[in-house]
């Protein structure tokens, strides 16, 4: 590949940021100083190109240090990794957290998504406008911008301050006031500490002894491996080694565990299909790109019980014959990043990751890859492209990930909560697990005690039970958004829906990623629907026509009927139905296929615009 680079030069800081990740440039061919030897032979080929997957980390390195990515920095990254500049530009412009234009080192991301909108994000934004000027316009070294759901719904309204520099400083402000948000954005290092993860789990605060997945939140130090082991940690991995990979898969299959990310695919079947592939190596990807509006369970698990995620990934890797796992973490989760990084370091130091896990002769290691602001990268094939340094666009299926996944090899992608369930399966056994299986729900909105709740995953739990558990509605409950923006609304008189996959399906709803977002009558429904439509328009990758243009047409129609009802809205509703149908039928991936769900259910079940 004979690449043409640009003439733009990186600054010393930019070069240092990239070199800190990749090491110093070994030759003039890779952006270093050109010497006589470089003129005698060319260096390139597959070896040089095979590090394409370092593109996203390299972009992060520059963005973290400088706050934005200049032409010189991008060119240097391209030279270091032998990447065509046009492609690197295409990748960098895909992610919302990167800027290719100069901007201040201090950026304040303000969530305006559904849960935060219900708790006053509009007033927060107005206050920020007074203090910092309009969104996107720098003032006093700070720029603020609206953000999709930050996964802090239990503490809405939320904001996240990020300050680039030699050490990135972050601060979570939730619940946020304009004053506190500006103070934190100006000096994130001195911002008051954010609430502990225990505060996101009301059941744990109350000392509920029935918790399983959440049992260690608030009782076990999430930064201390010894504490985790003293609380039964790594028993499951020992049991896995004792019974062997095939038996692990059998246990998981017998347990009936289904994916908790939204698609509810049987986990054991996925593992079995991957384990049996002759092609090697196999990979494990933990999907921690939790970005579905209203979802924050994975964040709480990763922040409050990070060792369990690492242990479960090790078991999954062992079962499917993988030696490398990737944990793809959404870019807006700074505390989870620190906790997981610490957990991996400690596990590695103690022989729980590495060449010889627990002395069993099994090699497994985990690398964290940070997302950079793209909901679509949580799609199971887009996540591969993102890790590989390509634009995070979904791939066509077939082939399925179990056959051709990450780097074209057999891959299992599991959600964080799915993996967390593997531990009780292996400690209690499939049969005992099956009878006592639990499910996490992300409860937010107009309720007394929002937070992550763990409830029995069977017919005995209804939506009403969960809402009662969460302190009941604070106002007059109008509807519940079940399953997230890709899920749908149910009415306040439909709360007897059992919280099972079948129960939800029978009611024409979906549990999706476990979102239960209560909406009372103080919030205007058309505004919520517009926010959902905006979300899908913003997050569409743009690859296929139904989603790229359809999400725009849906939003336009919702704008037109924002203040209309009845016959005045009928034509646009009919139009949206047609657009919704093509999105559902003909989009490449789940984003486009579900982009009309919430709006459709609001019209059909809630009678919006009637």
């Amino acid at each position, binding site marked *: 590949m004979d690449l043409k680079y640009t003439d733009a030069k990186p600054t010393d800081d930019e070069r240092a940021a990239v070199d800190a990740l990749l090491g110093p440039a070994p030759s003039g061919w890779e952006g270093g100083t050109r010497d006589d030897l470089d003129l005698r032979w060319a260096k390139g080929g597959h070896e040089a190109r095979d590090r394409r997957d370092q593109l996203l980390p390299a972009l992060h390195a520059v963005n973290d240090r400088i706050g934005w990515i200049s*032409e010189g920095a991008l060119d240097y990254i391209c030279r270091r990794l032998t990447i065509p500049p*046009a492609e690197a530009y295409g990748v960098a412009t895909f992610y919302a957290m990167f800027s290719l234009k100069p901007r201040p080192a201090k950026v304040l991301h303000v969530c305006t998504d559904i849960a935060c909108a219900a708790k006053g994000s509009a007033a927060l934004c107005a206050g920020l406008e007074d203090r910092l000027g309009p969104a996107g316009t720098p003032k006093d070294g700070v720029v603020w911008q609206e953000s999709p759901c930050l996964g802090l719904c239990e503490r809405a309204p939320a904001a996240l301050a990020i300050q680039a520099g030699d050490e990135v400083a972050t601060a979570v402000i939730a619940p946020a006031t304009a004053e506190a948000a500006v103070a934190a954005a100006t000096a994130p290092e001195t911002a008051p500490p954010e609430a502990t993860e225990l505060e996101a789990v009301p059941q744990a605060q109350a000392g509920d002894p029935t918790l399983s997945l959440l049992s260690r939140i608030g009782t076990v130090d999430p930064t201390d491996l010894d504490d985790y082991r003293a609380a039964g940690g790594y028993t499951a991995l020992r049991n896995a080694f004792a019974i062997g990979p095939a038996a692990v898969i059998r246990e998981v299959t017998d347990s009936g565990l289904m994916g908790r990310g939204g698609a509810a695919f049987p986990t054991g079947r996925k593992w079995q299909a991957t384990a049996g592939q002759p092609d090697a190596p196999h990979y494990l990807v933990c999907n921690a790109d939790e970005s579905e509006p209203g979802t924050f369970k994975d964040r709480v698990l990763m922040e409050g019980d990070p060792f369990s995620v690492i242990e479960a990934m090790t078991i999954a890797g062992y079962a499917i014959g993988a030696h490398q796992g990737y944990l793809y973490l959404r870019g807006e989760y700074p505390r989870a990043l620190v906790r997981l990084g610490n957990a991996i370091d400690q596990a590695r130091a103690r022989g729980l990751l590495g060449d010889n896990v627990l002395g069993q002769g099994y090699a497994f290691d985990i690398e964290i890859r940070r997302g950079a602001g793209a909901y679509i990268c949580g799609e199971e094939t887009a996540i591969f492209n993102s890790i590989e340094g390509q634009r995070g666009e979904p791939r066509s299926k077939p082939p399925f990930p179990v056959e051709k996944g990450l780097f074209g090899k057999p891959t299992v992608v599991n959600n964080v909560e799915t993996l967390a369930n593997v531990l009780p399966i292996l400690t209690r056994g499939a049969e005992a697990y099956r009878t006592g299986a639990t499910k996490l729900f992300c409860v937010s909105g107009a309720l007394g005690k929002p937070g992550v709740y763990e409830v029995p995953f069977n017919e005995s739990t209804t939506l009403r039970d969960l809402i009662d558990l969460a302190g009941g509605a604070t106002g007059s409950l109008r509807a519940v958004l079940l399953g997230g923006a890709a899920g749908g609304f149910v009415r306040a008189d439909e709360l007897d829906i059992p919280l099972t996959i079948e129960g939800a399906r029978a009611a024409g709803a979906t549990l999706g990623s476990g979102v239960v977002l209560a909406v009372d009558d103080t919030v205007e429904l058309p505004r919520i629907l517009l926010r959902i439509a905006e979300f899908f328009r913003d997050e*569409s990758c743009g690859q296929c026509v139904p989603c790229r243009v359809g999400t725009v047409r849906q939003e336009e129609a919702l704008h037109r009927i924002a203040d209309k009802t009845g016959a005045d809205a009928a034509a646009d509703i009919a139009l949206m139905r047609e657009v919704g149908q093509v999105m559902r039928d003909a989009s490449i991936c789940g984003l486009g296929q579900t982009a009309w769900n919430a709006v459709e259910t609001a019209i059909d079940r809630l009678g919006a615009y009637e």
Partner: protein
Amino acid sequence: MTTTPERTRTPQGSAPVSLGLPRRLIEFDLDGDQVRVPEGATLLDACRDAGKDIPTLCYGDTLTPKNACRVCVVEVEGARTLAPACSRKAEPGMKVRTDTDRARHSRKLVLELLASSTDLSTTPHVAGWIREYGAEPDRFGPDAATVAGREAKVDNDLYVRDYAKCIMCYKCVDACGDQWQNTFAIAVAGRGFDNTIAVEHDGPLPDSACVYCGNCIEVCPTGALSFKSEYDMRAEGTWDEDAQTETTTVCAYCGVGCNLTLHVQDNEIVKVSSPHDNPITRGNLCIKGRFGYQHVQTRE
């Protein structure tokens, strides 16, 4: 099992080439008829063999299907969503319906979404499909977001990038990249409705890695990429395809032997393409074959 022999070639004086395994024939139900296609064939291949007219835009006969436009979707029984005919491979026993209400609805909507957001005035066949499917692009209203207002990028003497006409089919990117040219001068940039085809930093073409092979023009389905000569003549109103002749000849620049098809209007070469079935070019040329024709018409 029915088999069909693989096409093979034995270079003279060398060891015989392995025949490989014979290709199986796949039998499946296409609109109620049992059809047979070689293993690996797509539903689009099968439809075309059966004389069925399925519209395509992002499909290219010389490229790996990207299935981005979704105008070729068909219904596969038992599947939750529709399948893009251009890339879905035929499987034994599958039941495929090409003309159901659902498939026609999606095709119609894709045409409406594209025609309302892009300038399709130079896209071949599309006007006919819009009529056939009863598509009404205007029903999204006068304020519907569109890229049709984008200004054409005229930054060199050879070809023009008029992204007002771009439907984001990815074919130019694939032809420029690892599927043909390996130049990687262009890529998709941005996200969602705001995405576009761009060189690095969306700069001018002469500053980029572009080698002006014009292979992107060859695969562009909408005329977003066109010879500067064609662009200028269209602007003057003198472009007239009916008055053009096409003459296929061999490029005289080097010994490779590429086929050139000269498009001639009023005794002037106005465009050069290459036959896609030519075993040497597969439609691709270099800058000399594609754009180096001026000497032919220097008459002094």
